[in-house]
């Protein structure tokens, strides 16, 4: 007996399987979370007598490099899903592995950036710009860590499902991918707002 319906097939009324509806509702709450912080940034910036240009404090080449790293990880993630659609499990493992490595690269670069700031005694308490910079980027980094944990599970023990229920496993990768692309999307806005303006 099936414990829960619509984990693979789509519901007739919504046209979506459960996880697809769930991830979009979850991402809606995420938009509000990051949106609240973005509007706080706007309010703080417009209310400040002086606001530093991001490039005078932050390392633009490192930020740009990290942007490329996250974009590349999004591409490898979507290739991992496409590989499952083509029934190529080895190709899936390769692409998801690349995604995880790129996500780790992003965090390593970010830690170097943070380290450089701390060496220069620049902390969240130093000024309002750094406070909102650390808040936004640390929250984003937590989402990257969450993505790494989920993707690592699907790369490792979770991938056993491919043998027993390939369609459900493919759906799971699609959902993990939608989350991961959202994390990339947030960074696409964070980079110019914090580093370049």
């Amino acid at each position: 007996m099936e414990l829960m319906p619509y984990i693979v097939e789509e519901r007739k009324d919504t046209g979506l399987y459960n996880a697809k509806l769930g991830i979009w509702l979850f991402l809606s709450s995420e938009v509000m979370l990051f949106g609240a912080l973005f509007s706080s940034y706007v309010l703080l910036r417009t209310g400040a007598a002086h606001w530093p240009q991001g490039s005078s404090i932050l390392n633009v080449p490192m930020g740009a490099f990290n942007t490329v790293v996250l974009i590349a990880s999004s591409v490898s993630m979507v290739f991992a899903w496409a590989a499952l659609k083509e029934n190529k499990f080895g190709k899936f493992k390769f692409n998801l592995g690349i995604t995880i490595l790129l996500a780790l690269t992003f965090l390593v670069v970010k830690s170097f950036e943070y380290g450089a700031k701390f060496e220069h005694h620049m902390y969240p308490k130093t000024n309002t710009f750094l406070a909102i910079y650390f808040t936004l980027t640390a929250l984003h980094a937590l989402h990257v860590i969450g993505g790494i944990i989920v993707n690592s599970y699907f790369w490792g023990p979770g991938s056993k499902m491919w043998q027993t229920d390939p369609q459900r496993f493919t759906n799971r990768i699609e959902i993990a991918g939608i989350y991961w692309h959202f994390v990339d999307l947030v960074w696409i806005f964070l980079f110019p707002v914090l580093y370049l303006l």
Partner: protein
Amino acid sequence: MMRGTHDIKQKIRKYWGVFTALLILTVVTVGISYLKFGLAAAIIAALTIALIKGSLIACFFMHLISERKLVYVILGFVVFFFLSMMLLIYASYFSLPGGATYVS
């Protein structure tokens, strides 16, 4: 089955195209920041490019271009509440008592 594989191969070609566009737009974003526009023009340029990049990711990588109606309805609510929140938070800037500031 053959048609499905053909569709995926077409999608993969599209993903490569989107990847190239995203890389080019990232270079343009950084390049524009070195040109000395005014702040307003710089903000408009940076956010417009970010919006284009975000749309490419959402439409192709997140498959929004071929999603079900309910997802668009959910996103419609998200846009409404997101804009309302931005406006309400920013509106508080104009309702401060005389002489008060948010940032010292």
